[in-house]
């Protein structure tokens, strides 16, 4: 009976809980963003950090659709690109304006223009797209993305043709004493807007509209029963998602000072889908993790190996097949077990899974690397630690087959015992 007589007030989070769950993470984010420059990063590190900030906002805006709204879009880069183009054109207007509105508009607030541009694009394109969810939505987004990408190359006066539109960020008024010249100053700009974007999108999840979008994802019929129109909810969420994508586009416009029609194409749309999904679409922090990891992979791993896209594809397929919660899901599973004090029960299995996956990965990496060096045809071979690995060398096959088989055996055995426990 205690369950029923429980007062509603008891169910609400306490002030301390509210602080811990809603304020503390953002204080931590602000502190991290502020501390990073103190470690004295190099120019390359700053460049990487700036791209990460842009991608974090972009991936989060994508997750407003996929994770929160259940809308799979293949053309989210359209809003990133259109917001970015709006910002670049505004940048040019600021540079050439003698007086009036643009002359007084600081570059620092360009992402606001991007936000407006993305929202406008979302409002126009979202109208036909949002009538249906599921596969029709995905197909319409694909069709519209192809159309806009083709139009991007056709209308040179807006999108600048193949060369794109360039701008100069060191014009107009300075705010906060930032000239935005060196990348270290751009960092503060990116950090500020990343924080605004992340906080804004988190706040959105707490609004009635944000809650309704999750309800529409789970059961549109019941949303209709309680008196809301699912199409309208989807449309409004779509506009906001487009707006935040435009915000990241505005950040990118200032960071790169150039936008090409390439930014509207299916390639960045696919990449943002990978970021959000690999990170974990069921968690707010998932896309942040995914954006950080993929940006890092894109710039660092591509120096080590040409096959980084293959590894990315493999990672994505593995996540879809074995860990639908993404990286954040794995991480939260770990902390949840830690908090529930059940770590002892599951740690053995996790350790086994980690070892199995690592072994399989080891074999796969050797296979891929040997294959890549073979296919280049420069006569180079894969030579880790002085080993001379080619397809003719039996050692290569031992190093490929043994770890892969061992890894798969371990993983299968663990999967079987797990099923046995449940049965």
């Amino acid at each position, binding site marked *: 009976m205690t369950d029923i007589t429980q007062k509603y007030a008891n169910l609400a989070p306490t002030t301390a809980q509210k602080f811990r769950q809603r304020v503390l993470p953002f204080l931590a984010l602000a502190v991290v963003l502020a501390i990073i420059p103190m470690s004295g990063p190099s120019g390359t590190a700053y460049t990487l950090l700036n791209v990460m900030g842009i991608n974090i906002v972009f991936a989060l805006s994508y997750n407003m659709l996929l994770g929160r709204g259940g809308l799979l879009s293949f053309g989210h880069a359209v809003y990133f690109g259109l917001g970015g183009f709006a910002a670049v054109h505004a940048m040019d207007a600021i540079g050439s304006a003698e007086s009036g509105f643009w002359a007084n508009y600081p570059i620092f607030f360009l992402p606001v223009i991007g936000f407006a541009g993305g929202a406008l694009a979302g409002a126009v394109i979202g109208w036909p797209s949002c009538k249906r969810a599921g596969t029709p939505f995905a*197909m*319409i987004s694909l*069709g519209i993305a*192809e159309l806009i990408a*083709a139009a991007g190359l056709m209308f040179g006066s807006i999108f600048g043709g193949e060369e794109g539109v360039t701008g100069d960020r060191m014009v107009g008024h300075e705010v906060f004493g930032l000239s935005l010249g060196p990348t270290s100053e751009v960092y503060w700009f990116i950090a500020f807007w990343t924080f605004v974007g992340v906080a804004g999108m988190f706040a959105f999840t707490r609004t009635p509209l944000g809650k309704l979008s999750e309800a529409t994802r789970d059961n549109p019929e019941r949303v209709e029963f309680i008196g809301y129109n699912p199409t309208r909810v989807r449309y409004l969420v779509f506009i906001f998602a487009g707006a935040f994508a435009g915000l990241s586009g505005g950040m990118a416009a200032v960071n790169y000072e150039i936008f090409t029609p390439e930014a509207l194409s299916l390639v960045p749309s696919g990449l943002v*889908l990978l970021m959000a999904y690999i990170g974990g679409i069921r968690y707010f922090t998932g896309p942040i993790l995914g954006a950080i990891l993929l940006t890092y992979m894109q710039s660092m791993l591509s120096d080590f190996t040409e096959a980084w896209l293959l590894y990315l594809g493999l990672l994505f*397929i593995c996540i879809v097949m074995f860990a*639908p919660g993404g990286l954040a899901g794995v991480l939260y599973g770990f902390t949840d077990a830690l908090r529930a004090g059940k770590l002892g029960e599951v740690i053995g299995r996790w350790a086994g899974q980690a070892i199995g996956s690592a072994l399989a990965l080891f074999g796969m990496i050797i296979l891929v690397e040997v*294959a890549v060096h073979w296919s280049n045809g420069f006569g180079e071979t894969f030579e880790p630690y002085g080993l001379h690995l080619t397809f003719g060398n039996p050692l290569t096959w031992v190093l490929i087959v043994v770890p892969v088989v061992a890894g798969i055996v371990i993983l299968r055995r663990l999967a079987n015992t797990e099923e046995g426990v449940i049965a």
Partner: protein
Amino acid sequence: METFVPSLLNGVIYGLLLFMLSSGLTLIFSMMGVLNFAHASFYMLGAYFAYTITQSTNFWFALILAPILAGLVGAGVEKWGLRKVHANGHVAELLFTFGLAYLIDEIVKIIWGRNAVNYRIPEALDFTIFRLYGSDYPAYRIFMLFVAISMLVALWFLLKKTRAGLIIQAALTHPHMVGHLGHNVPRIFMTVFGAGCALAGLAGVIGGNYLVTEPSMAVLMGPIVFVVVVVGGMGSLEGAFIASILLGLLQTLAISVDTTFGEIFGFLGLSGTSEVGSISIASLAPMIPFLMLVLILMIRPRGLMGDREF
């Protein structure tokens, strides 16, 4: 006439090639509800397999072996990949095939290189079959027409006149009922998936040397195949056929029209030198499929001949 008739013929051939690609996808889509993003990747695999086989033997072996290989790869993907993901819903399946398309692209780049391979029309078919309004018409295109039509007839016969076809048709709309009647539905799914991929592979074998065999061929063809399936309608091979031919004709004919917007809408005062006015119909050809896709989904979501909305 001298541009119209050859364009018409080319359009029909391109349309039939599209149908060969999309017939498998339509079957898979209506049976499992999955739009297979990697379908065009099997088309690419078919072309590359054929290239490798022609290196050591000849084209005729490739014509038979390459689709079988592509079909086997497809069946394997269904059995060990898609079936596992099925429990997580349609979005997960769509994403799985999306990742698979990525993966096949990269693997093809590693095995066969980043540039186009020299996969050529067999010498036995490399001649002029007839002259059409003063220009030579290659025999290989007629051969493509022949292969596509024989495949069309074979598929129609298999689906409408055999017992296996009956079960497949039943499984398209009522998979549970078919399961209750004692048929192994997962195996039917696997077979249809494999057969669909084999058809895509066949399209690759005869299309790869007509067009170009390169790693980007899947990316170029993939979205167009989707358009055919969506425009044709769910569960309807007839619809897919009409949509393929329509798309083939529209695209081929549009390319041969040089008229610009300025010339068409000149009476409205649109100048031929302005940005919009200088756009020609030919340059819009690549956009036509996607315009059709968006319009159909907005106006008639079940497609031309579909029996249900998806």
